[in-house]
Every structure is written in C-alpha cells, then in structure tokens.
C-alpha cells in the first residue's frame, strides 16, 4: 500500500506534461498510467489519447464522465475539483480496461 502510494506520488512527475494538463494514454488495450494523481480541490484538464485503432469510451460513473475517444484520436475533458479520494474509470467498450484517479490534498500550497 505504501509502495502504491509512493508510486502514485511520483507518477505525475514521470508521466505528465506541463501546463497542469494530464494525459492518459490508451495503448495496446490498456490505460497508461492505470492510476494517476491529481490535486484535490482543483479543476484539471485531462487529455485522453487513444493510440490504438479501435475507438474507446472513457467513462467514469464516480465522476460522471463519458466520452468517446476515436481510434488514433484524442479528446480533452475537465476533471474536478474533486474531494480527496479514489475515482474509478473504465473503457465502456472494453470493461477489462480500468484505472483510477487519485485526488490528493496538495502538500505544498500552490495556485
């Protein structure tokens, strides 16, 4: 559990671009990363990029999100502001593809 927490803390540094935007990639029928952390209480932009040829539907009943991502396409949606916690998402066209967003209270205060 501690490892998971540590990894999820490091993920934003490793996987995401600047501008406070987050990118979730669909590749080889997997979400990459399958779990990522965003700051709680903040509205963030999430780019879902589909590198597979098949269309996917990024869906989350936890945060009421539902959007079709064309094959080799990408869509941008807004997420949050979320309370601290874990929010599941999945591909409605392939329920084996699942992942989660962890909203964490910011340790250092920033804007």
């Amino acid at each position, binding site marked *: 559990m501690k490892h998971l927490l540590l990894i999820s803390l490091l993920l934003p540094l490793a996987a995401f671009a600047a501008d406070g935007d987050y990118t979730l990639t669909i590749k080889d029928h997997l979400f990459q990363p399958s779990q990522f952390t965003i700051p709680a209480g903040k509205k963030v932009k999430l780019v879902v990029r589909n590198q597979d040829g098949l269309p996917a539907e990024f869906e989350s*009943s*936890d945060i009421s999100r539902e*959007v*079709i991502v*064309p094959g080799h396409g990408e869509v*941008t*949606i807004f997420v949050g502001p979320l309370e601290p*916690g874990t929010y599941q998402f999945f591909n409605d066209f392939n329920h084996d593809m699942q992942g989660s967003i962890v909203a964490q209270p910011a340790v250092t205060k920033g804007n």
Partner: protein
Amino acid sequence: MLATAVIMFREVLEASLIIAIVLGASRGIEGRGRWVAGGIGLGLLGASIVAFLANVASSVFSGDGQAILNAVILLSAVVMLTWHNVWMSAHGKQLSSEVKAVGSDVQSGKRPMTALLVITLVAVMREGSEAVLFLWAIVTSGEQSLNMVLGGIGGVIVGILVGLLLYAGLLRIPTRHFFSITSWLILLLAAGLAAQAAGFLNQVGLLPALGNSVWNTSNILSQNSLIGQLLHILVGYIARPSGIEIVFYIVTFLIILVLMRTYGSNRNSRVKPVENPG
C-alpha cells in the same frame, strides 16, 4: 462473446426502458405506435450519423461537441417528457376512463405526439450511437468478430426484452392508478436525465461541479452493478453525485411537479365534458 453481449445490453437498456415507459404512459392515445416507431427509426439513423462523426477525430462531434450534443439530447428529452406529463395530468383521467374502449380518441388538447417521437428518437440516438460505434469496432477488429457480433445481437435482444417486461408490468397496473404511477415514473426519469445532462455540461467546463462526491453510496449500491444501472436510468440514481447534478435533479423535479399540479387542477374548470355526438 459474453463481454460483448453485456456491453451491448447496457447500451440498449436505457433506450429500451425509456421507450417502455413512454409507451406505457401514452396508453390509450391513438396512433402512438406509429410515432414511437418513427422515433426509433429516426433515432437509429441519427445514431449512425453521430457514431460516424464521433469517430472522426477532427469532427465537431468529437470531444466537447459530443458532450454538448449529449446534453442537448438529454435536455430535449426532459422538455418532451415534461410536456407529455403535463398533458397527461390534464387529460389522464379522461384517458383512463376511455382506455378500455379500443380506438377511443381524446377530444381536447393538442396530443403530445411530437413528444413521443422526440423522446424515442433521442433515447435511441444517444445510446444507439455508442452501440453502433462499438459494433463497428468489433467488426473491423477482425478477431473473433462473428462470435462477438452474435454476442452483441444477443445483448440487444435481452435489452429489448427487459423493456418489454417493464411495459408488460406497467400494463398490469390497475387502470385507476395507472396514469398517476406512469407520470411519477416519467417525472423521476426526466429528473435523472436532467442530472445526466448537467454531468455532460460540467465535463466540458460549461457548468461548475459545485462539489464532487456530495455523498458516496458506491459501497452500498455500485452504479456499475445491474441494479445500480437500472436505478440510474429509471430514477437517476448516482452513487457519487456532484452538486450540479443534484441541483439539476431537484430543480427539474420541482418544475415538472408544479406544472403538473397547475395544469392538472385547471382541467376540472377548463375541460368540458365531451358531448356525445348524436
């Protein structure tokens, strides 16, 4: 194959249940079958067009456009369900007294035929576009596609059967209570659809969330479970609602209720008894 069946079943279920409810609620209105069938046909056509456009990355129906289209579709369904319900509360009593007589006609008021058409159209179009896209993805993927297409068709059939079951169940309700029960069903359905629309508008940043996870009942009843999904469609159950979804739900609920009460009570003074033609 089973996975495909389940996914198609879920896509079809919403449209199937909505059509069952409006078919039930419009019982006794002559010619409703034609309008509903027309709505289904147009809905399938619209679904195919949207599915095609949603899969073109640069099209207006990709991303934001898709969410806005969904919101518009849902809200127009809400408006039509409201019209239907208000009309029914003004004419329901008259209808239920005539419902036994086959081919009877309602004499007063503009019948909500367009409402029936639009409701079925948008219900089919919304989830249908996803179903079409999904099936298309299977067919073009090549692997085990026949098996999966068969599974998908199975899912569609089961989804339609559930709708038929609901319709058959509705018809068993005693005539005396029939229209009050169906109008409550439609009221809750419309409020739930309005909440869904709020979710889509929030997704593209047009509406504030007003707090996420105002409550969380995922542990008690997951929205992804079958019962959770049924309740989500029928009464708008959301396991972790945002503030804006709750606001839309309550406001829609109250508006429709007030309209129903207003027109429902007026009818006694406004509608004259139908004279028997000599």
